């Protein structure tokens, strides 16, 4: 037997037990003479002592021993056994024939050599990877040097970084207690607990209690506490207010941006609301402006340069040169303008006479070739039918008002065009009828003349040849009807000819 006999899970059948080792057969062999079966190792040893069968003492030689029947082999090989490392903790059980393989490859409690190169130790297979043996290199926590595990204890006792000398009390301390020592060392320089209130004291920690009893700040400790609390509250409030301001500023930025967008979208219709609001809110200024001759010049202050630019951009043909004319001239021009020509814009126009005047100047400056020619149209009903390219825009009014005005102008224009067309149609028809009649009378006169010429020619021919109808037969031989037709037609002409001749 080469290995310790395994532990069987159940008590084996007595027929499978070797009488020498009292265990189930291992590699069973049978004596062919007497058919007794033993373990191979057992019987070989027994025969070495005495050459007889242990059971019946018959003579037995080693040559008579043969492997036992395969059935017996299977019966014993398949007996359930416990792992031989059961004492170490392995609870594995298997067939006896599989036990060797289990121990050799699987059993976590099997002893295997340590993986370290120089280590002769044997460890459990499950511990092999995490095994720390004397040859494993470890790192010192203090100086971070690499040290063999078995030398670590010796190194720790003399590691240079394991101790430090306190600079204040000059006592050597272990590194591990450095933090606690610094906070408790009596010689460390500390400051008074009222330092942030202004106490300038600075000294060793052991002197601190003595100072505290004399410190003037200590006596008003309660006041400081209240004050600190109040400061903290104020800081909090400040913080909140700052946040609020930030929010408002960002909202303001957004609003400004939106305002700019609206401004660019509105173009010349955008007006500074301050001018409107002031003029609306203060009727006194409204009254003042028309009464004063200088009102227009003062009101120009409301117009920013950007307004001018935007307007010139929209109306490139309009020059602003006339703005420098005196207000009196403006008044004069306005009075010259016929009242119905004023476009009926929204009431806002009345609020600021300065804007009205500006509007007027812009129209005056525009190249209007025939302003008064509107009256030349016989049935001109619209307030204005300007032939220039610029529409009558009033920048003082709202955008809707201006559009409304423009729309009305267009409607008026179209109606006037319609009536004009109708009138010219009637005139043309009348004229054509008259001309037609004249052409008809002329044609009749011409016909009468031709008839007279024809008669004269016939008469002349008769006088020359002496016979009347000879030439007719020459012209139309065999056709007796033609002359009669000709005569029948000639008669009314002859009758009418005196009239036509007299007419001609």
């Amino acid at each position, binding site marked *: *037997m*080469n*290995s*310790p*006999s395994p532990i069987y899970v159940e008590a084996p059948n007595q027929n499978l037990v070797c*009488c*020498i*080792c*009292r*265990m189930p057969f291992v590699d069973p062999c049978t004596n062919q003479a007497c058919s007794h079966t033993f373990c191979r*190792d*057992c019987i070989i*040893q*027994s025969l*070495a*002592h*005495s050459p*007889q*069968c*242990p*059971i019946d*003492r018959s003579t037995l030689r080693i040559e008579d021993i043969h492997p036992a029947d395969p059935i017996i082999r299977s019966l014993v090989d398949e007996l359930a056994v416990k792992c031989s490392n059961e004492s170490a903790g392995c609870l594995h059980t298997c067939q006896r024939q599989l036990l060797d393989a289990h121990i050799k490859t699987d059993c976590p409690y099997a002893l295997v050599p340590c993986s370290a190169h120089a280590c002769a130790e044997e460890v459990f297979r499950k511990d092999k990877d995490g095994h720390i043996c004397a040859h494993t290199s470890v790192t010192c926590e203090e100086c971070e040097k690499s040290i063999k595990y078995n030398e670590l204890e010796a190194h720790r006792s003399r590691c240079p970084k394991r101790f430090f000398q306190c600079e204040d009390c000059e006592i050597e301390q272990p590194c591990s207690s450095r933090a606690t020592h610094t906070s408790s060392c009596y010689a460390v320089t500390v400051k008074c607990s009222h330092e942030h209130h202004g106490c300038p004291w600075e000294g060793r920690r052991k002197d601190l209690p003595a100072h505290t009893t004399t410190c003037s700040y200590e006596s008003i400790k309660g006041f400081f506490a209240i004050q600190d609390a109040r400061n903290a509250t104020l800081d909090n409030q400040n913080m909140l207010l700052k946040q609020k301001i930030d929010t408002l500023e960002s909202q303001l930025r957004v609003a400004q941006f939106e305002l700019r967008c609206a401004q660019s979208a509105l173009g010349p219709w955008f007006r500074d609301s301050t001018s409107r609001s002031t003029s609306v809110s203060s009727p006194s200024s409204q009254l003042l402006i028309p009464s004063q001759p200088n009102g227009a010049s003062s009101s120009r202050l409301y117009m920013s340069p950007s307004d001018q630019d935007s307007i010139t951009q929209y109306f490139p043909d309009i020059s602003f040169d006339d703005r420098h004319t005196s207000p009196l001239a403006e008044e004069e021009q306005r009075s010259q303008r016929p009242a119905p020509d004023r476009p009926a814009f929204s009431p806002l126009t009345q609020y600021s006479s300065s804007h009205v005047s500006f509007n007027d100047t812009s129209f005056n400056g525009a190249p209007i070739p025939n302003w008064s020619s509107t009256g030349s149209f016989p049935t001109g009903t619209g307030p204005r039918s300007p032939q220039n390219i610029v529409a009558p825009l009033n920048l003082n009014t709202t955008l809707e008002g201006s559009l409304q005005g423009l729309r009305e102008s267009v409607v008026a224009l179209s109606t006037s065009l319609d009536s004009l067309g109708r009138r010219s149609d009637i005139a043309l028809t009348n004229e054509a009828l008259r001309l037609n009649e004249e052409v008809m009378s002329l044609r009749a006169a011409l016909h009468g003349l031709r008839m007279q010429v024809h008669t004269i020619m016939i008469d002349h021919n008769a006088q020359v040849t002496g016979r009347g109808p000879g030439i007719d037969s020459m012209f139309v031989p065999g056709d007796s009807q033609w002359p009669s037709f000709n005569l029948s037609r000639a008669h009314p002409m002859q009758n009418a000819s005196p009239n036509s001749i007299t007419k001609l």
Partner: protein
Amino acid sequence: MPLCSYEQRIIKETERLVADPAPGITASPHDDNLRYFDVTIQGPEGSPFQNGVFRLELFLPEEYPMAPPKVRFLTKIYHPNIDKLGRICLDILKDKWSPALQIRTVLLSVQALLSAPNPDDPLATDVAKHYKENELDAQRVSREWTEKYASG
């Protein structure tokens, strides 16, 4: 390591001897040496050794079970096959030993030997001669010895 297996055999034999002893026989191993046993055998009924309790020592040699155990009477006994030193003349303890035998069978054989002395194969020649010439007288001496040495 053959001893591994055979030590296990010894352990198994010991367990059985203690748990299920043969009638009239006790055997207990020494604590310090599991191969050394203290044995007592009661004298078989109907024999001159009746009512005697005989102490023996039994030692399992290194070669056991290939070699027979060594057994010796510690109690003085008047028997033709047991000498003054307690050595026993028994064939299975010598050339007739077989590995198939065990401690229990050996002790039963010894007990049987007390019932059936064999003066033809003597070890104590004077006792054997006495048994051969006057068996009754010899049995009387045996009884006396049993009473004298084996009654405690």
